[in-house]
């Protein structure tokens, strides 16, 4: 096999390795500002990984939300609370034990995951073939992801938008002191 055929595999490996390095760097970053920027890079690497997998819509969402807007919002919060981490005191044994335990559980759970890129997972054989075959014909839209999100699953997306609106209404009520009058 040539290198060209193995290219997705090589890209996956390199990107996953970079993700690991990045995650470790986030843990060891002393400054919260540095950690935030590193998390932004993490999201960008994730977006590249999604792109290699062929999920362009997910990639653009990850880049816009993960690397873009959430980085900006976290920076804004840091400008309010300062960017020095508070020293954690007390016994760290219990939290460490919990982390190890949960990680082992998650690792064990990965054995039940379908094989990477498998065509025979329930997600691939249930309704996906119908959407792929009929989506462009029934909705006239070449981007199958859009036709599923906006048309076939339009009701779900409506719920999603309502959730976003409800969340911001809650934030406004809790933090905004929004009375309808202009604040001084």
């Amino acid at each position, binding site marked *: 096999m040539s290198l060209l055929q193995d290219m997705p595999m090589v890209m996956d490996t390199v990107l996953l390795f970079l993700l690991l390095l990045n995650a470790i760097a986030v843990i060891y970053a002393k400054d919260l500002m540095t950690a935030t920027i590193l998390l932004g890079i993490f999201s960008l690497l994730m977006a590249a990984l999604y792109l290699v997998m062929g999920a362009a*819509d997910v990639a*653009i969402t990850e880049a816009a939300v993960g690397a873009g*807007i959430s980085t900006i919002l976290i920076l*804004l919060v840091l400008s309010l609370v300062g960017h020095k981490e508070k020293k954690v005191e007390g016994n760290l044994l219990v939290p460490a034990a919990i982390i190890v335990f949960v990680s082992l559980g998650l690792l064990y759970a990965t054995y039940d995951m379908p094989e990477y890129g498998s065509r025979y997972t329930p997600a691939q054989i249930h309704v996906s073939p119908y959407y792929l075959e009929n989506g462009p014909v029934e909705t006239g839209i070449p981007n199958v992801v*859009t036709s599923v999100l906006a048309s076939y699953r339009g009701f779900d997306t409506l719920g999603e938008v*309502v959730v976003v609106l409800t969340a911001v209404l809650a934030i406004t009520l809790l933090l905004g002191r929004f009375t309808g009058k202009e604040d001084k």
Partner: protein
Amino acid sequence: MEDDILLRTVVKVLTPFIFMFGLYVQFHGEYSPGGGFQAGVICAAAFISHALINGLGELNRIISEKTALALACMGVLIYGGTGVVAMTKCGNFLDYSVLTEGKCIEQPIKGNNVYDLVEIEGEYQGAKEDYVSGYNNEKCQGVSKSDKAAYDAFESDVVGAEKCVKTKVRIDSAIKGQHLGIIAIEAGVGLTVFSVMMLIFFIFAKRDS
């Protein structure tokens, strides 16, 4: 941050391009990756970076907190309204296929008993399947009443060809409706997400002062 000439210049140059890209993602949701959600986030990022450099007052001049809240609600109303419009045209809630059709007039189709309805539904499904398979093997494409060659090809089954034409007209109208509906709801999603991001920024930035 507001005094750094490098940051000021970079943001000033990039902001219009970010905003433009956001609009591109909004209007090309059907053809390229992305849609209303991503577009709203990208446009909000453009406005927020503008505000980070020029101060909150500058942003307040363009869009106020109250306007943002109103726009967020408006987006959801546009989305839900599209569904209701479909209902007024004899469709289900959020069934865009009927959007280009005229006003709905209640009329009993053929008979009132359930077997007739099942039969009609079955006929329609059958015709649709014909069309879908025709679309795939190009059997139905380019078929029209004046198309002699196509009729000859279907000579053994003229009814089939006629069905093909009828279904095609019906499905073309449905596709137009789908297009219209999806543009409308994407606009609603984009508006809501954009305003929500702006509101979150407003709330946190105001606590600064």
